[in-house]
């Protein structure tokens, strides 16, 4: 009987196991083996270089830019997307009707093609766009949106916030809907205003949603690719360069499979450590404030 149950379970899980093996485990093992080689995918001889790829990665400015920029993206993106998602969730929560309609509407940017959105944004910010024409007519000049290092970083971060705010808002919305109405009614009877209710009831009880959104948002910063690829190519002067752009550049522009795999492994380590740190920080904050 148990044997039959196990077979059924394995059969049901087999599509996932197969997909994970083919598209995750085998490539992962392949990448881990490549990090010790200098190889362009076609040379009959793979040159064993030991830890040379790691030494190069630790000493090149390109990887350093990717590493530092990820935290710059995080510094802009994480607080912005949390606030935006929370505001959207609160708006939808307090709508008298058509909640689902608006929730789905805010989620749609998440489904939009990053390349298509990038091209639209590039059009909006191009020198001759109506928006920039208006700025020049009103203020005498228009910003160099994608050519100024700081502005380019902000523009790309804003695009990602736009894309993910609706998605994270759904997580907050689920959290908000799980808060019992009685708590607010009791607080109201005690004379608590909306702000106090939000601070004393909503925020603490949304802690699990905050935890999820923060971890997802920080992890996402290590996977940014499409937006800078379409808009800036990582420039100006590496100001918007990311881990994924570096992996792509090494693997597909320079055909350095071994070194590209090395950067990918370092990216995975940096992501793991950063997510671990943010988890610990959020958990400690939750414990200190009594949310956990």
């Amino acid at each position: 009987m148990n044997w039959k149950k196990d077979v059924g379970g394995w059969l049901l899980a087999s599509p996932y196991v197969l997909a994970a093996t083919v598209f995750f485990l085998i490539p992962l093992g392949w990448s881990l083996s490549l990090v010790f080689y200098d190889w362009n995918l076609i040379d009959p001889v793979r040159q064993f270089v030991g830890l040379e790829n790691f030494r190069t990665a630790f000493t090149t400015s390109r990887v350093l830019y990717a590493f530092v920029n990820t935290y710059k993206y995080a510094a802009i993106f994480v607080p912005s997307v949390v606030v935006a998602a929370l505001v959207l969730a609160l708006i939808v929560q307090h709508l008298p009707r058509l909640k689902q309609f608006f929730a789905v509407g805010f989620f749609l940017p998440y489904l939009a093609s990053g390349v298509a959105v990038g091209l639209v944004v590039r059009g909006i910010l191009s020198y001759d766009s109506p928006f920039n024409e208006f700025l020049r007519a009103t203020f005498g000049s228009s910003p160099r949106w994608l050519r100024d290092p700081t502005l380019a970083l902000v523009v790309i971060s804003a695009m990602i916030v736009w894309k993910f705010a609706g998605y994270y808002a759904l997580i907050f919305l689920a959290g908000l809907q799980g808060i019992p109405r009685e708590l607010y009614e009791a607080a109201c009877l005690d004379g608590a205003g909306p702000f106090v209710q939000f601070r004393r009831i909503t925020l603490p009880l949304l802690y699990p949603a905050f935890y999820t959104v923060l971890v997802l948002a920080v992890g996402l910063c290590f996977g940014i690719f499409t937006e800078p690829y379409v808009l800036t190519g990582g420039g100006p002067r590496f100001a918007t360069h990311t881990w994924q752009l570096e992996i792509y550049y090494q693997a597909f522009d320079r055909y350095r499979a071994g070194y590209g795999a090395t950067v990918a492994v370092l990216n995975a380590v940096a992501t793991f450590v950063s997510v671990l740190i943010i988890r610990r920080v959020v958990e400690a904050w939750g414990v200190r404030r009594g949310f956990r």
Partner: protein
Amino acid sequence: MLMAFGLLSAAQVVEITFWTAPNPSQEVFWRQMAEAYMAINPNVKIVVSPMPEVPTSEAGILAAIAARTPPTASENIFIGFGEQLARSKAIVPWNTLPGWDNLVQNRAMNQTIEGWKFADGNYYIIPLYVNAMLIGWRLDILRELGYSQPPRTYSEVLAVGEVVKAKYPGKFVWLRSELEVPTWWQRWFDFFVFYYAASQGKALITGREITADDQAAIGVLQFFKTLRDRKFLITEPLATGFELGRTVMTVLGPWTFPWWRENYPELVYGQTFVVTPPPVPDAYPAEKPVFTFADAKGVVLYAQATPAQRQAMWEFIQWVFSNPAHDLKWIEITGMLPARDDVGTNALFTSYIQEKEPALLPYAQNIPYALPPFAHPEFVEIQELMGLECIYPVLVGELTPARGWDAWKRAIRPLLVK
């Protein structure tokens, strides 16, 4: 008996594959060639398909070689990538095959082929087309400004800039937003064009040595910077510049003309625009030819093919390139010029160009002065560093042109000795 005969016949048919550039018109040309060849050679089956772009055509070829599924031959290979394939012994030198000299002779490539010699003295690529990169000028706007012909030198371009800005403050001389982007291949369409013009075609890199004309390179950088400082050059993204008359100059390849015919029929060669070689330094002798960069690609034969497939492909390639009518067909279908020495002089080509696409005439005439990319396996990083270490810092004023040029040379030296 009949079955045995059928099996024998099937065994004698050699199947070869040919990958074309991911460009529909090029695919049409090669399909027509393959069908015509198979009609007279029933023992050869040629499968023509566009090469995969995952995410680039070069990466697609590498992936196919790694997976041991490359075609027998493909086009769309430029000399830098060819150098990388040759170093990995993934392609076969054409000149080791019998009849190579005849092919060079028959296709009138004696002069053209010299730019395609690899460091080991072999020819791994048969050049297919050469697109000299020239400069398009808005003749209608220049006439409005009082000019009857486009400027030839840097000073003349700057003078045009002054007049453009005085009459039309919202217009620019040149839109080149990619100048601030380090993408390696973009250098083919800005710095290389102007550098070859200024240096009389002096090679930037020869083998492992930097052989550039420093004075010419620094002059080009200074020219770019002056254009930008005076707001004659716009480096910000702009949807359309030249076509809508927002700029008067553009670096122009012949592949643009079919697109213009579709989308900007008002752009008529000789009326609204003309094409010239790139601007040169003021001291450049007027009687000397002006060199430029050539967007040039060719055909390679992959080493993984069997001897029978190589032989069959070689015979097909000889058949394609030994008949000038096929090169004329190439022009008709793709709008690009074949890599032949006589494309600007052979009546077969010039009469067609004059009648059907006169804008191609300057391209044909400039083929002898159009130089392909340099051959070095580190071409990607070398050209990317040009944007990062040199052009961008010079444009934004972080470095003088001379210091920017030195910075690039310093940065690439370790790559050259690899």
